[in-house]
């Protein structure tokens, strides 16, 4: 619980602080799991609660999260009086991969735990990891012995980031998905939306430490109410973070033209073929899985979380065979881009909606480092949950852009529901918000425009030429070399 420090300056509004605490602790319960209510709160009230929550969280977490304490001390900030004043205390997403990579290569998991401990209010460093010989075994031990379920993700540069998320964070996240996806906006929730077991179809892994692997078991808890008969996954094994990391490093090394320099334990290198093999068969297995689900769960209410391309392939094939409308009409489909560099077909939504008998396939915007997912409305905007404060930062100065008119900047968020980590995060995404616009869908909640880019993709000048190397230049150089003589 929040410790209450004596008021500084202005008198404290304890009513609003009590409200903020409810939002912070279990916002869905507080709003009766009512999607429409959640997305139609008056903006001023939301911002007042957000500000109160930020101050409560700041007081509480700076005692618990060492990196935050260091940041807040360095900035000399102990209390804020406007939302924008929080901007200097938002943490760049890179902080979650700021350990020396040799610790991972040398499997020094105890040191990694000490590093992680500085980023969460829990204490993974208390766990004895001396026997762990892989990322998977390390993160499993931490998950078994602490409230944490660390989210691991590999980047294209060959690094691996670790977000010390808690199990509670995952559950909140999944609850938010059920509330926002199962209910139709503008209507009261039907009892089934909240209470029924819904078949969760995950054409992915049973388990894992990356979001892709972890979502499976939490969707079983939240959608299937823990009933294994309602939980359907494609791969009856864990998505290995070791293999993910190996793959990322091999890819990064291949881009540089020297795979021999990848310093990985031989035991892991030996699994490279296994990994490449499973990657190769994956699309076919997933398609077969979806087709099996279509047969087995015909007419039932399902929740499907998948990539858009996979759903499209299954739907297209089904339509070609003269089938359609296979699941109950109140089923929920969540697709995602996922496949970077793979263009989505033009008739994507049409084909999926027709075949799966769903009104609309829903997209959402979210990330491992946040509990709250923003769901795309009929007017192509991602509506942000009221317990998340949005900041758009100027790409040049890093300062918050005015909270009015249409603005485009680097997205940053403060998620007051963050249970384990400091909820303030600066992303690598370039986002547009029209602060004054009232969305035609009826939601009053703040919304991000559909088109979201990576900041790194939009930066880069005209035709300034420099002889100094950057990774982009190298990637382009590789394209150039491989395209040569071909």
């Amino acid at each position: 619980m929040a410790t209450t420090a004596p008021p500084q300056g202005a008198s404290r509004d304890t009513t609003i602080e009590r409200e903020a605490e409810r939002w912070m602790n279990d916002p869905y319960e507080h709003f009766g799991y009512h999607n429409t209510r959640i997305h139609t709160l008056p903006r001023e009230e939301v911002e007042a609660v957000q500000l109160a929550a930020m101050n409560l969280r700041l007081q509480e977490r700076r005692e618990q999260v060492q990196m935050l304490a260091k940041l807040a001390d360095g900035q000399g900030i102990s209390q804020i009086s406007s939302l924008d004043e929080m901007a200097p205390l938002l943490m760049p997403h890179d902080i979650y991969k700021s350990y020396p990579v040799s610790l991972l290569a040398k499997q020094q998991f105890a040191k990694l735990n000490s590093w992680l401990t500085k980023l969460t209010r829990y204490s993974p460093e208390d766990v004895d990891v001396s026997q762990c010989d892989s990322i998977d075994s390390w993160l499993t031990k931490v998950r078994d012995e602490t409230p944490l379920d660390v989210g691991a993700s590999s980047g294209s540069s060959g690094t691996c980031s670790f977000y010390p998320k808690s199990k509670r964070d995952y559950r909140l996240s999944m609850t938010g998905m059920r509330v926002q996806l199962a209910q139709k906006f503008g209507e009261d929730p039907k009892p089934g939306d909240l209470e029924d077991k819904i078949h969760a179809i995950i054409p992915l892994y049973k388990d894992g430490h990356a979001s892709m692997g972890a979502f499976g078991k939490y969707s079983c808890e939240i959608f299937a109410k823990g009933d294994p008969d309602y939980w359907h996954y494609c791969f009856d094994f864990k998505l290995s973070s070791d293999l993910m990391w190996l793959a990322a490093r091999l890819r990064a090394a291949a881009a540089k033209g020297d795979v021999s320099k990848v310093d990985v334990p031989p035991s892991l290198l030996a699994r490279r073929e296994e990994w490449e093999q499973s990657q190769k068969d994956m699309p076919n297995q997933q398609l077969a899985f979806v087709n099996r689900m279509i047969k087995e769960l015909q007419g039932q209410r399902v929740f499907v979380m998948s990539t858009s391309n996979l759903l499209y392939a299954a739907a297209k094939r089904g339509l070609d065979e003269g089938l359609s409308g296979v699941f109950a009409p109140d089923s929920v489909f969540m697709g995602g881009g996922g496949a970077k560099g793979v263009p989505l077909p033009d008739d994507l939504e049409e084909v999926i909606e027709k075949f799966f008998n769903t009104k609309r396939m829903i997209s959402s915007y979210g990330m491992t480092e946040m509990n709250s997912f923003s769901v795309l409305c009929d007017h192509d905007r991602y509506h942000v949950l009221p317990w998340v404060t949005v900041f758009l930062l100027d790409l040049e100065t890093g300062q918050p852009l005015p909270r009015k008119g249409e603005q485009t900047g680097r997205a940053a968020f403060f998620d007051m529901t963050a249970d384990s980590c400091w909820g303030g995060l600066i992303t690598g995404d370039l986002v547009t918000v029209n602060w004054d616009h009232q969305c035609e869908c009826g939601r009053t909640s703040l919304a991000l425009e559909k088109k979201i880019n990576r900041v790194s993709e939009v930066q880069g000048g005209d035709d300034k030429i420099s002889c100094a190397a950057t990774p982009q230049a190298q990637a382009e150089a590789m394209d150039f070399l491989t395209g040569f003589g071909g």
Partner: protein
Amino acid sequence: MMAKRPISYAVLRGKVIETDLIEFGGRGGDISFLAPDPHKIADQIPLASPRLMEDLYSISFDQILDYLAELGPRLELGRNPYLQEALEYSYDTAPTTKPIMDAFYHDLPFMFDKERIRKMVDFNIGIDHLEGWVEQQLNGSTVGIRAYGSRQLHIVAGNGPVLGALTVIRGAVTRGDMIVKVPSNDPFTTGAIARTMVDMAPDHPVTKHLAVAYWRGGDEALESKIYQPHNIEKICAWGGFASVKHVTKYIQPGIELISLDPKRSASIVGKEAIESEEAMDDVANRIAADFATGNQVACSASRLVYVMCGTEDEDIEKLKQLGQKTYDAMLRLPEVISTKPKRYDPDLKRQVDTLRLNDDFYTVVGGRDDEGAVLVSHTSDRVDFWEYLADRTINIIPVDTLDEVLDVVDAYTQTVGIWPESLWDTVRHKGALHGGQRFVELGYGFNGAGLVGPQDGIEPMRRIVKWIVSEKPLPGRPPLWGDSAKDVKMLA
């Protein structure tokens, strides 16, 4: 009349073009500038016919040197209004600051020193090969070799205004016909030099064989017209792939690409550096000179410093001191050499600030005021964002063995600074095998002979000329006819 706006003049073979101006640039906070519509002058950019190369052979190498030597003093800033104007505008487009740009421009005339150029040419190509046929008797023939000037297109980098001048010199002494495509981060300097040439000697063959223009790299309609084997034989392209990438589309038999790829540089330092206060002071000065000069915009500026001091706690404590001293040494550099960067990359700033929170693994010296920073690793890991180090930001990394260092020397590594002398032979030899291309004594990366020899492991000067061979039989060589014909061995 509206306020004067920056113009990137096209100077085509003795003619200054300042009509049909259209606007370029202006994206991402850059200034916009005007330049003649390249489509309107496209026909005048390439040389109309190889026949027109003949006039370059009516003058001797010494006459070319005389020309350059006369040009040099005319490029003195105080007496050259074109350069004054170009400098004024370049403050906005250049990646470096005013004092550094001033110093670049101030030093420009000295590049045209006759003896300096003569030595450079002799070292690279050999003047006799440019002046005539160098013959010897070989395998029953008199074989002659001569270096002929080519019709060449230069896509020049803009991180230093000296590169345009260097290109002009290289082209002139090799009797080349030069098309210089200027970059948007240095669109004015080369044009100003060319305008000075037109004033000085409008009909001189060297003036007549220089075409300077700006067009947006990737302007396919324009480039597909110019980049044709009947117009050019060689393309010399620096670094930035925004332009080079498009160039590769036009590479075909008859056009050779000389690519000066993007590079980065590093320093390799022995344990001696932390063994005494004096050594630390000395090495700190040397590191600062190698990374902060010109505000680290050049590829030859060091970005990673490996110190073979070991990774024990006491080693790291000493290394932190070296980091502090290096930072202090950077601040002591005179402003004609190094200044607070023009604009500190905000992404880099974010990364450096993040690192600051992680003081178990890294020590950040400075960087709070966008002045540059020294990042000292406590383990043998370079920072995660090492590829983005710039704006006077360097990473000092402790290692136990030389092998750990050599692993990071690769084909993208241009300059490697070495200290102390005892490491020289080993690092130079092993480093070259790993891909390093230039080895210097630490502290002298920018204070050497200049770009006089090979560059990036290749020899651009030898490659912008065409190496032509002539062969005549020596008396007594049997012909391929008559009685002896069947005994002649034709060997490749």
